[in-house]
C-alpha cells in the first residue's frame, strides 16, 4: 500500500516508453510521450506529500504545516511547457505526413547516403 505512488510512476514511465517503442503512428507516439511526462509529475507530487497536511495556501489559516510548494512549482510550469512541446512534435508529424504521405516510423528510414 505504501509503494503505490512509486509503482505507479514506474508503471506510467515504462508503459509510455513501451508505447513509444512499439508505436506505428507518430501521432500515437506523441501521446505516449505525454504519458511518460505525466509519470514524472506523479513522482514529484508524491514525494512532496505530507500526511494530513493541506495545500501550501495560507490565505485563511496561519502559516504552518503544509505540503511541499517547491515540487508543485516545478510541476506547474512543466505541464504547460510539456503541452507546447507536444504541439511542436505534432507539427513535425504533420510535416512528415505532408512530405512522405505516411506516419509509420518503420517505413520512414533515414537515407543511406
Amino acid at each position, binding site marked *: 500500500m*505504501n*509503494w*503505490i*505512488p*512509486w*509503482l505507479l510512476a*514506474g508503471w506510467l514511465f*515504462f508503459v509510455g*516508453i*513501451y508505447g513509444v*517503442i*512499439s508505436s506505428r503512428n507518430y501521432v500515437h507516439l506523441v501521446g505516449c510521450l505525454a504519458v511518460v511526462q505525466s509519470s514524472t509529475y506523479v513522482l514529484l507530487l*508524491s*514525494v*512532496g*506529500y*505530507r*500526511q*494530513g497536511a493541506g*495545500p*501550501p*495556501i*495560507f*490565505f485563511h489559516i496561519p*502559516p*504552518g*504545516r*503544509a*505540503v*511541499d*510548494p*517547491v*515540487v*508543485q*512549482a*516545478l510541476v*506547474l*510550469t*512543466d*505541464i*504547460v*511547457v510539456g*503541452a*507546447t*512541446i507536444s*504541439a*511542436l512534435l*505534432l*507539427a*513535425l508529424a*504533420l*510535416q512528415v505526413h*505532408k512530405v512522405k504521405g505516411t506516419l509509420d516510423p*518503420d517505413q520512414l528510414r533515414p537515407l543511406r547516403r
Partner: protein
Amino acid sequence: MRRYRRLALFAIAMLGILPCMIGLFAHMPRFGEHPLPYGDAINLNGVRQRHVTNMVTAVNFDYRGVDTLGEEIMLIAATVGAVMLLRGSRGEELSARPGRAPGRPIAWRSTGQVLIARLMAPLILLFGLNIIIHPQLTPGGGFQGGVIVASAALLIWLGDGYRPWRRLMRSRPIEVAEAIGAAIYALCGFAPMVVGAAFLQNVLPLGKTGALISGGLILLINAGVGIAVACGFALLFIEFLQETRAEEEPDPEEREA
C-alpha cells in the same frame, strides 16, 4: 532499428532496471513522511518575507524565478519552432474555406452551438483574466490563466466559424504581444540590477499581506507570463487550424484559358 530489435532491447533493459527500482523503493521514506527541509522553510517564512499567501507562486516567481524564466523561454522556443515549421511549408495558397476530407460532408453549425459559444466566450475570458491576476493570494497564475484565455478565444471559432475568428485574431499583434510578455519577464530581471540589487530580486514595495496588490515584482512577472502564455497558445491554435483550410482554387478565367 527494426521493431522486434527495439522491443528486445527494451525487454533486456527492463530486466536490468526492475531489480534496481525495487531496491530503490525499499530504501525510500514512507509515503507522506519525506523530509522536506526546503518546503518547510518556505512554508514557515514565505508569508512574512514576501507578503504573499500562495507559497507555490512565491517559489515560482520569486524564490526560484530564474527557473521559471528558463521555462518561459522554452515555451517561446517551442512555439516559434512549431510556427516556423507550419508556416515554412504551407505557402500562400490557403484560402479560408474548410478543407474537405474524402467522403465526409461538412457539418452545419446548429443555432444552439452558436448561442452557447457566444455566451460562454466572454465569460470564460473573464474567468481566465480572474485566474491570471491573483496568484499571490489563491491558486492561479499566468500559466493556467493564459491557457484559459487562449481557449476562450477559441470558442469563437467553435461557434461562429473560421473567418470571424481570424478577423479577431491577427497573427502579427499576437506575435508582438507574446514577445512583449517574455520581454517583461526578462526586464523585470534586469531592472533590479539598475538599482544595485541582484537579478530578479524583489525590489518593489511588498504591500499588505492578503491585499490584491502585494508581492512586489511577482505581480509584474505574473502579468508578463500570462500575456506570453495566452498569446503563445493562441498562435499555436491559429497555425494548426490554418492547416485544415483548403487550397485556393485557380481563377475560372485561368482554367478556361
